[in-house]
């Protein structure tokens, strides 16, 4: 608390010296961009203003606002969060921050609670994979792509920019954030630091037969810090060079599931992650290209201080290192004057007119997992990914054809085992702006993507299986996008129907007995789904109203074994129906109020769709209100109050990982634009 206080005081004190003059022209530029842009029906996005209104704890919480996403949240604050997009394994969703992908070869899953939200300028989810020029090749191959753009890693308009926040809330939450950025026409330089703590002790009650089981969530505290340094230079008139380092350290209690009659919990997880990125982008008339490289090092320490072994504790350490470098290009007609504003805007490159565009690239990576556990025999992995595609644009429609390839070769230095696989993936999409007058824009796309087995699946102890094949996902989508302008209302509809078929699904099955399991490609699943989005906005002279409604229906059927009692049952933790909606009123662009709600139908904790495995559906409402105070020059000060779980509902995404009741967060944000 005291540290944070000093932090914010420093920010205020130094503000005067940052006085500067540039008017922010960002808004006007966005308008121009919108006009040039043809909306990509595969992309959903949230901008800075929307993120501010939602006041998310982490990226996981933001993703609830996207249609087609099923979030798995292991508790509130600091709890692990993973996603599944349209019923497909979360490992098929690539995560990209400022054009650099975050990858983990041990489990394949990234904990979304480890990505902080303060710096996010824009977050986009492209279902069916990204087609952006500045995204890495791995993001183009993936089943879908979550792309995040931050404040720190991109060129800005004015000379100095400062952003800071101080937050305090329920369960001992204290959060302080400071980011500084210096810009001139040819370079930028930024620094960011964030520190967050909470004791996480919240009361809960869950159904226990006909009674209520009440308790306090214990061992749910966390402290975590984030830091980043970024810099970029324009070289000549056409090239940009960026370098960036991101750091994250956390120490979290793992409360585990609520276990009836036993509240003892002594597990902790510590994490230190460092990622270094560098890229060079050239916006050439002949062949615009980007060269990128990253090094990511993740250290995980799992501690159980009362484990019943001889030592009396567990201290498992995992070190996952990942090197990647790649080259991507996109031959497209582009005017050089537009470069500045479209830098790192993923969608804009899709929109240019008429001509035939070629794109593609190649990426190689090397990963290594080390551990203090004898069961993990230091697996290494070399990967080579390549993509080649073409895009044809007509005045009202566009056609994209892409082929991808992924090769990996693994080696275990201790056991001497090697594994090699090659996969090939075609993908095609067609969009048209208007088909029949009342139906609006139509789009079709089909994509084949895969996830390669993780180190854990291939090698872990007796469990791993060296014969595993990649898990394949085939996605077929037909979509419709329609915008109406009625009086002063803008109404936007997006409707998608899809069918996904997942083959060679990697599942763990027992072999000889409960102790010996094997991971095999025996799973098969199909998904029938519908995504629906509705957006309404209306601007009055002083008021702006906006409503968003997302509804998603997905039938995710297990087709693994015709003779199994779970044949055609809904897969665990995927709700058939999800509805989320928010309503925002903004007054004079200064004050605003947002009410948002999320409703999820019941889910099953295990494959068998019986009452005993059922997790009740829930609905939960949040609200936030903010006011921006007038300050001289280009400064702004915003005070906001966020109330989560307004109705104090008892709910859980994952069975017995109960979420907090009503809780508050007060934030003070100061910025120099």
């Amino acid at each position, binding site marked *: 608390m005291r540290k944070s206080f000093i932090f914010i005081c420093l920010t205020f004190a130094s503000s005067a010296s940052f006085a500067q003059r540039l008017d922010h022209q960002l808004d006007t530029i966005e308008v121009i961009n919108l006009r040039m842009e043809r909306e990509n029906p595969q992309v959903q996005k949230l901008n800075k203003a929307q993120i501010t209104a939602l006041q998310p704890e982490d990226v996981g919480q933001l993703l609830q606002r996207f249609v087609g996403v099923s979030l798995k949240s292991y508790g509130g604050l600091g709890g692990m969060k993973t996603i599944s997009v349209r019923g497909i394994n979360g490992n098929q969703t690539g995560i990209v921050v400022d054009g650099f992908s975050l990858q983990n070869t041990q489990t394949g899953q990234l904990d979304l609670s480890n990505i902080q939200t303060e710096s996010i300028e824009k977050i986009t989810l492209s279902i069916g994979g990204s087609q952006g020029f500045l995204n890495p090749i791995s993001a183009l191959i993936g089943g879908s792509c979550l792309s995040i753009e931050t404040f720190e890693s991109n060129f800005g308009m004015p000379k100095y920019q400062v952003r800071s926040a101080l937050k305090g809330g329920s369960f001992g939450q204290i959060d302080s954030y400071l980011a500084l950025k210096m810009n001139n026409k040819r370079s930028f330089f930024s620094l960011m630091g964030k520190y967050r703590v909470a004791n996480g002790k919240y009361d809960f009650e869950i159904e*226990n*037969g*006909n*009674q209520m*089981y009440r308790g306090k969530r214990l061992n749910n505290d966390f402290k975590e810090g984030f830091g980043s340094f970024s810099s970029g230079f324009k070289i000549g008139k056409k090239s940009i060079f960026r370098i960036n380092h991101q750091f994250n350290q956390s120490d979290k209690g793992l409360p*585990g*599931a*609520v*276990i*009836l*009659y*036993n509240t*003892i919990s002594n597990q902790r997880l510590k994490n230190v992650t460092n990622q270094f990125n560098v890229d060079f982008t050239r916006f050439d008339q002949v062949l615009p290209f980007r060269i990128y490289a990253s090094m990511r090092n993740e250290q995980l320490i799992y501690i159980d201080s*009362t*484990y*019943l*072994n*001889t030592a009396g504790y567990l201290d498992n350490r995992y070190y996952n290192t990942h090197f990647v470098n790649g080259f991507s290009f996109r031959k497209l007609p582009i005017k050089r004057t537009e470069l500045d504003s479209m830098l790192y805007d993923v969608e804009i490159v899709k929109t240019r007119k008429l001509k035939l565009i070629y794109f593609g690239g190649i990426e190689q990576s090397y990963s290594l997992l080390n551990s203090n556990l*004898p*069961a993990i025999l230091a697996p290494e992995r070399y990967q080579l990914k390549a993509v080649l595609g073409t895009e044809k644009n007509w005045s009202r429609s566009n056609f994209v054809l892409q082929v991808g390839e992924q090769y990996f070769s693994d080696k275990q230095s201790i056991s001497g085992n090697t594994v090699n696989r090659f996969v090939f993936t075609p993908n095609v999409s067609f969009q048209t702006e208007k088909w029949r*007058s*009342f*139906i*609006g824009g139509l789009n079709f796309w089909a994509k084949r993507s895969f996830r390669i087995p993780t180190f854990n699946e291939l090698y872990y102890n*007796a469990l791993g299986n060296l014969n595993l094949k990649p898990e394949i996902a085939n996605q077929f989508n037909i979509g419709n996008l*329609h915008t*109406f302008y*009625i009086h002063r209302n803008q*109404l936007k*509809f997006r*409707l998608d129907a899809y069918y996904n078929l997942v083959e060679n699904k990697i599942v763990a*099955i*027992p072999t*000889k*007995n*409960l*102790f*010996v399991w094997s991971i095999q490609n025996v799973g098969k699943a199909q998904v029938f789904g*519908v995504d*629906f989005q509705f957006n309404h906005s209306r601007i009055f002279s002083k008021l702006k109203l906006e409503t968003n409604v997302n509804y998603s*229906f997905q039938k995710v059927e297990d087709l693994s074994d015709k003779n*199994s*009692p*779970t044949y055609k049952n809904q897969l665990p933790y995927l709700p*058939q*129906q999800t509805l989320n909606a928010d309503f925002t009123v903004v007054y004079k662009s200064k004050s605003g109020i947002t009410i948002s709600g999320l409703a999820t139908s019941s889910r099953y*904790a*295990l*494959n*068998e769709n*019986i*009452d*005993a*495995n059922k997790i009740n559906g829930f609905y939960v409402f949040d609200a936030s209100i903010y006011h921006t105070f007038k300050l001289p020059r280009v400064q702004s000060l915003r005070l906001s109050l966020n109330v989560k779980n307004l109705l104090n509902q008892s709910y859980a995404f994952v*069975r*017995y990982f109960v979420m907090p009741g009503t809780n508050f967060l007060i934030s003070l944000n100061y910025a120099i634009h």
Partner: protein
Amino acid sequence: MQFTKYILFIILLGVIFSCKKEHEETIESPEILQNGMLVLNEGLFQLNNSSLTWVDFGAGTSNDQFFTQKSGRLLGDTGNEMLRYGNKIYIVVNVSSTIEVLDAITGNSIKQISMQANGNAKQPRSIRFYGSKAFISCFDGFVDVMDTATFQIESRIPVGLNPDQMTISGQYLFVSNSGGLNAPMMDSTVSVIDLNAKSELTKIVVGKNPGSIVTDHQGDIYVISRGNYSTIPSRMKKIDQNNFTVLESYDFDASKITSMNNRLLILNNNKLMLFNADTDELMNDDFINNPAISTLSNMCFRSSSQQIYLFDSKGYTNTGNILKYNVNGDFLTQFHVGLNPNSILIYD
């Protein structure tokens, strides 16, 4: 006009995709337990879904809400064993770290005993009875002595690492110290406890990772040392009841044993083998081998009716079946039960 058409189009699609709801029927639990079977379903770790199923032989129904209907609450997480002693049923709940005591006539809850020591869960694993005392193996390295009248833990007998299964022969309790949580350095001993003195007499080295342990009709002890599930195989050993020494190690895979008259039933790779405990010879390595059983996880022999019950856990993640056979291995009938059945009590 266009807008109206479009809205109608959306609504039409909405109607097509609207779906229906299903519910399972609730069955009531009987007041007095008779002509049926009580089944303890272990459930799965961290899901608090251990349950009791009441199988009504007359009506042919299975009701997995039995415990909740009787006590108003849930059983907890990972029920490892259920035994009847006198007029009480004892259920050992491992992860919740409790012993549940029920009335054996009605199934009503009598007492829930919390098994914790110095702020840590003892993780009880199995229970045996001798006189007025219950002996409870706890994963924290002790066998607890509990008085069956007061339900007080009177003493804790230190044994090996992660004591697991137990069997009584004469005045001795044999405890397999699995050391499972210390993998790959598992324990390899069986502790011998003098039930009158309530203390450990000795430890017998039997082989890595001892688990299933039974006493045959002559009082000799058989234990399975489960090895390390890869290079060291799972083997059955015979222990001399008088000298506490290992008499023999048998050269076949075995994962669980139970005693049947003068025979042993041995579970091996989804099938049941028959072993002659008089001659110490394997009589039939394919005694019961039913392809309809997908995961043969446990078995039980009921001497009063001379029937064998086999537990099919269906991959450990789906609700299971219990199949009834006669002593010749002929299939009689089967019952659908809950998730991971591991103990049964039959009521005539």
